[in-house]
Every structure is written in structure tokens, then in C-alpha cells.
């Protein structure tokens, strides 16, 4: 207990917790739009694709500057989205296979580069493999501030363009009809996903960053039918997962942050599946039971009347 208290009081840790919370918030918000547009797995492909970008940024600069990594990962992510689009538009390979191809090939190239860096004997490289699973505790204060700032920008963009994104998610044809720049907004959402993924890499790692985009949004969908409410809830769930996951990871047991955050998000999801009103398992069972008793009662009444009539 004393260590837990100590962690809360450390200003550095407070910043890290704050940063992870904002990260969860922004990825939950953007994930909601990705979910509605059936692009949930895009985040998975993009986060894997970021690895070669990070490695090339390191090889070119020789330093572990977070800004350059973000730039490299963002460039790789944009190339990956174009690659997926190119494959699906220009061949008969479907989107799921295109996603999987881009994901594995980019990640494979990333692994080749990563092992080359590791074997090159550059003493500065240690800790680069932390990008695979994330280690929030090893982040510098400046990294956390960058992360928090970008997350805030993401949330602001989403709330300013909420109406446009809403229309785009539900009825792109109508959006085009009333003159929205649909292609541009498509790219914008994709770019926001790339940014969210890139920002989250250091805290959560490339392998599991996609979960932060998907799981809170899916959980939120269980509770509400309104997009506004869903986005708020997804942000809330994401923030909660980021906060608790990072807290457990930072409490000194040296577990990687990404998987813990994802497990917290999964616990929230499981709770939503079980307990959500109307769509949850429990409420469905209750509804079914009440309908059954009602039907039985009506049947009993009907057969009772019939018997009375017969008598």
C-alpha cells in the first residue's frame, strides 16, 4: 500500500498517468468512428506498419528522439494506408487480405531493420525493442507532454468535426450529395488513426495499440444507441483503461504497460457484454424470461377460457 501511495505522489508518475489517460481518451474517441466505418482492424495494420518507420528514423538519425520516431511512424502509416487502398482498388485481393499482407510485410521489414540495429552494436539502441510492447514507466517527461498535447489535439479535432464525421460514418453518399469533401475527410480520419497509433506506440507498443482503438468503442456501443454518447463513453473507457493499466505497470512489477492496459479495457468490455442494458447478456436473458412467463400466462388464460367455454 505504501508503494501505491508513493507512486501517486511522484510528479513524474502523475504525468505518465495523465498522459496515458489522455491517450486512452483520444484513441477511444477516434476508435468509435473507425468502428462505425468498419475499419477497426485498420488500427492493427497501421500500428504494425509503424515499426519500420520507427527503425528507419533511428537508423537515419542515430538518436532516440520521440519527435523523429513519430514522424517516421506517421510516414510509414500513411504509406501503409495507401498500400492497402492500392491493393484493394487495383486487384481482386479483398480488403482483409490486403490488410493482413501490409501488416505482416511491414512488420517483417521492421523486424529485419530492428535486428540489424541490434546486431550493429550501437550502444544507443537499447530500449528500442520497448516499442514492441510499450513501457510507460520508461517515458521521459517531455515525451509524456508531447503525447498529452497530441491527444488533446486529436480530441479537439474530433469534437469540432463531430457533425461531419457522424454524417460520413452513417451515410457517406448523402455527405457527398450535400457537398462535403468526402475523399478528403476519409483521408483525414485515416490520418487521425495513424496519429493516435503513433502517439500510443511508446506507451502501449505497436502490437497491442489497435486494442485501444477497438475495445473501448465496442464496449461503448453496448451501452447506447446515440453516437455522441458512444463517443463520450468510449473516451471514458479508454481513459480508464489507460489510467489503471499504466498504474499497475508503474507499481514496480515491471510488467509491460500495453498488455495490462488492454486487459483492463477487456475487463470493461466483458462487463459491458454482461451488464449493458438491452444489449447485454443478462438483460437479454431477463427479457427472454419475462417474455416466456408472459406467454405462458397468456396461454394459460386462453386455454382456461376455452375450457370455460367448453363447460
Amino acid at each position: 500500500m505504501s508503494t501505491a501511495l508513493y507512486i501517486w505522489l511522484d510528479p513524474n508518475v502523475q504525468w505518465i498517468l495523465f498522459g496515458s489517460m489522455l491517450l486512452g481518451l483520444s484513441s477511444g474517441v477516434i476508435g468509435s468512428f473507425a468502428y462505425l466505418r468498419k475499419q477497426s482492424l485498420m488500427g492493427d495494420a497501421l500500428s504494425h506498419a509503424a515499426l519500420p518507420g520507427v527503425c528507419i528514423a533511428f537508423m537515419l538519425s542515430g538518436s532516440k528522439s520521440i519527435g523523429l520516431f513519430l514522424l517516421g511512424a506517421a510516414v510509414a502509416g500513411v504509406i501503409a494506408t495507401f498500400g492497402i487502398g492500392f491493393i484493394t482498388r487495383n486487384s481482386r485481393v479483398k480488403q482483409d487480405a490486403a490488410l493482413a499482407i501490409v501488416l505482416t510485410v511491414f512488420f517483417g521489414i521492421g523486424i529485419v531493420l530492428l535486428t540489424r540495429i541490434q546486431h550493429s552494436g550501437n550502444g544507443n539502441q537499447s530500449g528500442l525493442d520497448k516499442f514492441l510492447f510499450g513501457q510507460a514507466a520508461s517515458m521521459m517527461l517531455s515525451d509524456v507532454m508531447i503525447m498529452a498535447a497530441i491527444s488533446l489535439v486529436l480530441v479537439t479535432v474530433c469534437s469540432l468535426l463531430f457533425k461531419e464525421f457522424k454524417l460520413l460514418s452513417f451515410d457517406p453518399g448523402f455527405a457527398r450529395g450535400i457537398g462535403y469533401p468526402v475523399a478528403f475527410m476519409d483521408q483525414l480520419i485515416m490520418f487521425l488513426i495513424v496519429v493516435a497509433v503513433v502517439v500510443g506506440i511508446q506507451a502501449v507498443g505497436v502490437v497491442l495499440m489497435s486494442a485501444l482503438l477497438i475495445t473501448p468503442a465496442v464496449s461503448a456501443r453496448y451501452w447506447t444507441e446515440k453516437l455522441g454518447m458512444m463517443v463520450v463513453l468510449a473516451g471514458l473507457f479508454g481513459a480508464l483503461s489507460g489510467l489503471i493499466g499504466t498504474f499497475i505497470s508503474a507499481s514496480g512489477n515491471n510488467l509491460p504497460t500495453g498488455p495490462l492496459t488492454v486487459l483492463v479495457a477487456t475487463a470493461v468490455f466483458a462487463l459491458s457484454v454482461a451488464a449493458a442494458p438491452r444489449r447485454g447478456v443478462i438483460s437479454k436473458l431477463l427479457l427472454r424470461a419475462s417474455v416466456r412467463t408472459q406467454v405462458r400466462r397468456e396461454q394459460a388464460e386462453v386455454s382456461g377460457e376455452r375450457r370455460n367455454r367448453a363447460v
Partner: protein
Amino acid sequence: MSTFWIVLTGALVASACSIVGCFLVLRKMAMIGDAISHAVLPGIVIAFLIGGSRDSLLMLLGAAAIGLLAVFLIQWFHQSGVPSDASIGVVFTALFAAGVVLVSMYTRDIDLDLDCVLYGEIAYVPWNMLQIAGVDIGPKAVWGVGLALLLSVVLIAAFYKQFKICSFDPAMAAAVGIPVALFHYLLMGLVSVSTVASFESVGAILVVGMLVVPPATAYLLTEKLGRMIVYSVLIGCASSVIGYFAASMLDASIAGSMISIAGGIFLIALLFSPSHGVVLRKIKQKQMVRQASIAE
């Protein structure tokens, strides 16, 4: 000799994965392969913690069971209204996260390395020989993957027609009385078994890559399922052989280079395939435009 074993293991993994991968690509379930290969991790770890060794049958069964559980959960969420891509994403990330946490918790006590799990150490394959009566009969990985390959070949050869109809027209398959759900889970079981057998020696990333990239390449080259399977096995084997030598030249991860080579072959097929290539189609279009203008 060790080069031979590594290349052989790579080729076996490529063959085992690309055979079942063909059906995944045709049924638009490529990401399910990704999901299973990540999701089996907790099964492997738990079986390892119970069994205490890395080569038990228990491990294979545990992992295959978790793989099928993942497929079942994805199906269930999908049926209760979650879009299939989102349900895939939720299920496999959750299971993989659980696996990573388990590995990290026990990583000090056991020799199951996280990096190894993710991108494998196919280079260590020759060090883990299987001995019978004191005689080396080849690395354990070769036997494991070889058996998985044999199983897929036997099952798919036996039920080739059923698998084929199920992939192209599930409604018709159901109408003519083929148990579609059974073959769905049989295929998923084969994916799990191939994944698990390959996983430990070559890592998740090579498995996912070999499940999707060679079949997708073959898909661009032919219209016949039989040929597609043969082509994808050949492409998979070629990329594992070339990838191995590229890796030893670059002094980099072998599994990573195999995937990169497979990706290169896919890119070539995407651009220059005789029937579906982007470049050749453009040329044909131009020719037709010219002919049309001449005719006018």
C-alpha cells in the same frame, strides 16, 4: 547441416501455412489467421506452465484449444451484433495481452522469451534435436511442423470437394447437405494446429505472413483452386529459401526477411501478373483504346 535444417523448417512452415491460408484468403477471413496466431499465445504459455517443457503434446493441444475458443468467441460476438472486424480485434488482442502478461510474469523462471514468441528464433531450430535411441533424427521443429503439414494435406485431400464448395458458395454447400459449420471449425482447427506447430520455432509474425501473403500472390496468378494451392506452396518455399540467404547476408532476423521476400514476390505479382497485374492491365487498356480509335 544447420543451414539445411533451418531452410527445411522454413519451407515446411511456409507449405503448412499456405495450404490452409488459401482457404482463408478465398473465404475473406485473412484476419482470422492473424487473430488465431496471436490468440494461441496464452494457450502455449499455460500448457507450458503445466507441462513444464516446450515440446509436449499438451502444448499443442492447449494452444489449438485456445485457437478454437478464439474463433468461437469471434463468431459469438459477431452473431450478437458486433461487426466481424471489431469482434476479431477485441478477441485476439485480449488473448494476446493475457499471454504477454503471463510470459512477463514467469519470464524469469522459464526459457520462453517474449521476442522469441513474437518473431521467433528459427536460427535455434538445429540446436533442438529429437533423439530416438540416441540417434539424431532431425530437429523437433521439423517433426512438429512436418506432422502439422501432413495432417492438413491428408484432411484437405480427403475433403477437397467439400472445402472447395464451402469456400466458394457456402449457401450451396448447405443446400447439398454438407455440414458447413463442421468444415468451418475443421478449417479453423487446421489453422490453429499449423499456427501452433510453427509458432514456437518461427514466431507469430512469420506464421501470419505465410498464411496470407503466398496465397494472395497465388490468387493473382491463377483461376483454379488446385493450382492456387500449388503456386502458394511454391511461393512460400521460395521466399523462405531466399529469405534465409538474405538474412544471413544482412545479419538480420530470418523470419523477418522471409516475410519481406514474400512481400516482394507479392508486389511483383500485383504489378506484373499476366491475368491480374496492374501494369499489364494498363497496357491492355491502352491497346484497346488504340484499336478502338483505329476502328473509328
